[in-house]
C-alpha cells in the first residue's frame, strides 16, 4: 500500500512537471531521502513498541557537532565513535523511560531540549566546518553511477534491522509490547530490555543520519537536523505503521520517507506556490495515510 501511494505521488508530480521524472531527479531525491529514511527507520522500532521518540532530530544535530569536533582527533574512527555515542544516549533515554516509568513522550521531549542545549554549548552556538572530507567521502559516491551511496546505506539499515527482527524473537517481543504491554510482561517477555534496545537502535540511527548530513553539508551544526523530527514521524505514519504500537514495519517507513521527501522537494520544484504548497502537503499526507493504513490490524484509530 505505501508503495502505491509513492507511485501515485510520483505520477502526479510528473504530470505537473514532465521534467520531474528524470534519472537525475530521482537520484537526487534518493540521496536527499537517505537521512530521513535512517531516522524514521530507527524511530519506527520505538513506535512499534508503543512509544515515541521525539529526540531523534535533536540527537542527530548533536551528533553532527560530535562528528565535527571529534574528527580531527579520531580520524577514521569518528564514524564509529559517533554512532556508539548516540546509541548510548538513546539507551540512556530508554533506561530512564523504563526505570522511572516516565512516558516516552516526556523523556524524549526532555531529551530533545537537553541535547539541543548541549549541542549549542559544545559547538559554541555555531557551525563547525569539517575540513577533512575523506572520512565521509564514501557516502557521497554513487553505486553504479546512479544509486547514491547514502541511500544504499539507508536501505542496508532497513534490510539488516528487518532481518534481525524477523529471524530472532525480537519481532514478536516488540509487537507484543506494542499491542499489549501488560500481557507481554505477564508472559515473561523482556519488555524493558526490548524497549531499551529500541531506543538504542533509534539513537544509533540518529548518529548514522548525522554522518550522512555531515557528508552532505561539510559541517556540523547544533540545529542542523532539528527540522527533521516531524517529517520523520510523518514518514512512519504515512508508511502505515500504527502510532499506537504493534503493527507496522521498517519497510513501510522507507516508503513513507520517500513519500514525505517527494512532497518536501517535489511540490516547490514543480512550481506550486508556497502557500498552496502547505495546503497540498497537508491534504496529501492525510490522503496517503488513508491509503496505507491497514485497518484490519488496527481496530481503534486514535
Amino acid at each position: 500500500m505505501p508503495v502505491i501511494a509513492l507511485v501515485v505521488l510520483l505520477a502526479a508530480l510528473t504530470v505537473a512537471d514532465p521534467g520531474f521524472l528524470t534519472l537525475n531527479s530521482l537520484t537526487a531525491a534518493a540521496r536527499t531521502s537517505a537521512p530521513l529514511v535512517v531516522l524514521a527507520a530507527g524511530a519506527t522500532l520505538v513506535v512499534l513498541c508503543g512509544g515515541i521518540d521525539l529526540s531523534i532530530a535533536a540527537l542527530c544535530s548533536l551528533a553532527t557537532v560530535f562528528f565535527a569536533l571529534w574528527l580531527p582527533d579520531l580520524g577514521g574512527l569518528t564514524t564509529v565513535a559517533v554512532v556508539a555515542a548516540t546509541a548510548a544516549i538513546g539507551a540512556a533515554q530508554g533506561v530512564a523511560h523504563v526505570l522511572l516509568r516516565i512516558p516516552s513522550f516526556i523523556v524524549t521531549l526532555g531529551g530533545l531540549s537537553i541535547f539541543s542545549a548541549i549541542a549549542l554549548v559544545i559547538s559554541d552556538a555555531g557551525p563547525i566546518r569539517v575540513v577533512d572530507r575523506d572520512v565521509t567521502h564514501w557516502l557521497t559516491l554513487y553505486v553504479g553511477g546512479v544509486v547514491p551511496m547514502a541511500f544504499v546505506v539507508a536501505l542496508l539499515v532497513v534490510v539488516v534491522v528487518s532481518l534481525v527482527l524477523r529471524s530472532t524473537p525480537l519481532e514478536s517481543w516488540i509487537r507484543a509490547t506494542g499491542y499489549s504491554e501488560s500481557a507481554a510482561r505477564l508472559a515473561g517477555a523482556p519488555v524493558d530490555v526490548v524497549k531499551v534496545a529500541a531506543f538504542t537502535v533509534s539513537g544509533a540511527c540518529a548518529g548514522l543520519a548525522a554522518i550522512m548530513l555531515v557528508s552532505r553539508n561539510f559541517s556540523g551544526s547544533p540545529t542542523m537536523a532539528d527540522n527533521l523530527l516531524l517529517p520523520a514521524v510523518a514518514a512512519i505514519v504515512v508508511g502505515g505503521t500504527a502510532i499506537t504500537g504493534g503493527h507496522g514495519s521498517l519497510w513501510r517507513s522507507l516508503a513513507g520517507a520517500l513519500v514525505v521527501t517527494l512532497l518536501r522537494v517535489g511540490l516547490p520544484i514543480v512550481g506550486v506556490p508556497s502557500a498552496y504548497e502547505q495546503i497540498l502537503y497537508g491534504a496529501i499526507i492525510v490522503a496517503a495515510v488513508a491509503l496505507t493504513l491497514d485497518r484490519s490490524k488496527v481496530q481503534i484509530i486514535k
Partner: protein
Amino acid sequence: TEEVGGGGPAAAAGACDPADITLVGQVRNESNPYEAAWLDGGDTFAEQVGLTQQRLTYDGDSTRQQEQISQLLAGDTECLVMNVLPNGDSDTPPIVEGAEEAGAYLVTQWNKPADLNVTDYDHWLSHITYDGVESGRQIGDALAEAIGGSGGVIALQGVLDTGAAKDRFAGFEESLAANPEVELLDDQTANFSRAEALEVTKTLLTKHGEDIEGIWAANDDMALGALEALEQAGRTDVAVVGIDAVPDALTAIEEGTMTATVSSDGPWQGGIGLAIGYCVATGELAVEDIADEDRAWFAEQFLIDQDNVADFVSPEITESDFACDNLFSRSQGAMS
C-alpha cells in the same frame, strides 16, 4: 556563441540566450514581510528582463533548503541563476559546491562561513551581506545616546547559532565598551521572533523593573515584540532599537515609540542577486572581470532614526541598480 545546448557547462558559460535563463529566488518563508519583499524584488527584476522568477521557500528548515537545492540542481542547470538566502552559515558550503558542480550561477546573501572564499569558485559569483558588527554597534550607539549615555539596558539576541546574531551582538558589545556608563543588565535570546520577544521582555521587565532604560534587539521583529511588552507594562520611557527596517518598525520610529533601526533593503537584495547571475549568464559580465572585492562584500546600510525615517518609508526599486555595469554600486567594501 549562439550555439547553446550541446556544450558542457564551460562552453555554456556566458552563452545563455536570455530567454533560456531560469531565475530562482530562495528565502525562508513568505510569511515574513522582509523576505516576502525580497521575493517581490526578485519578481520585479525578472519582469524587467522579461522572465519570471521561481519562488522557493524552505520554512527556515536547513535540511529542506538543501533538499530543494539538490533537487533543483538535478534538473536542467545550464542557464540556472540562483539568488539564495542560506538558512545558516553551515548551509552555504553544500549549496556552493552543488552549484559549482552543476554549473549553475549562484549568489548568496547574509550567511557564509568566514573561511569559505568566493574567489575559489567559478560559479559562485558573489556573496552579499550587511556588516552585522557595524549595524549592532550603530544601533547600540543610538541606544546609548537615546538614554543619555548612561543607564541599564537589556539585549534580545537572535537565533544563537547564526552569524547575524553573533555579529550584531559583537557590535553591540563594542558599543557597550565605548559607552562605559551603559550597563547591560541581561541578555536573552528571543530567536528573532516577535512572540518570544514579547514574553522574554515581560519577564525581564519584572526582573529589572525601572532599571531598564533601553532595549537592544537583534532585529526589528523582536524590537516590535518588546514594544508590545512595554505597552502592556505601561512603560513609555524605554528606548528600543532594532535592525532590518521592516515597515512596522519604520512606522514606530515615525511615531516616536522606537528609536532607531538599520536598513537592509529586501527588494534590492531580491533583485541584485538575480541581476548578477543574469549578467554573467548572458555574457554581459565575465566572472573573471568581477573584482575580488566584489565577490564578497558589505552592502550599504543606513542608520534610520526619526530624522531620516521619511526617506525610507516606501523603498523604491530603481531599475538602474540592476544594470550590468552598476551592480556593485552599493558596495561598502569587501568583507574582512
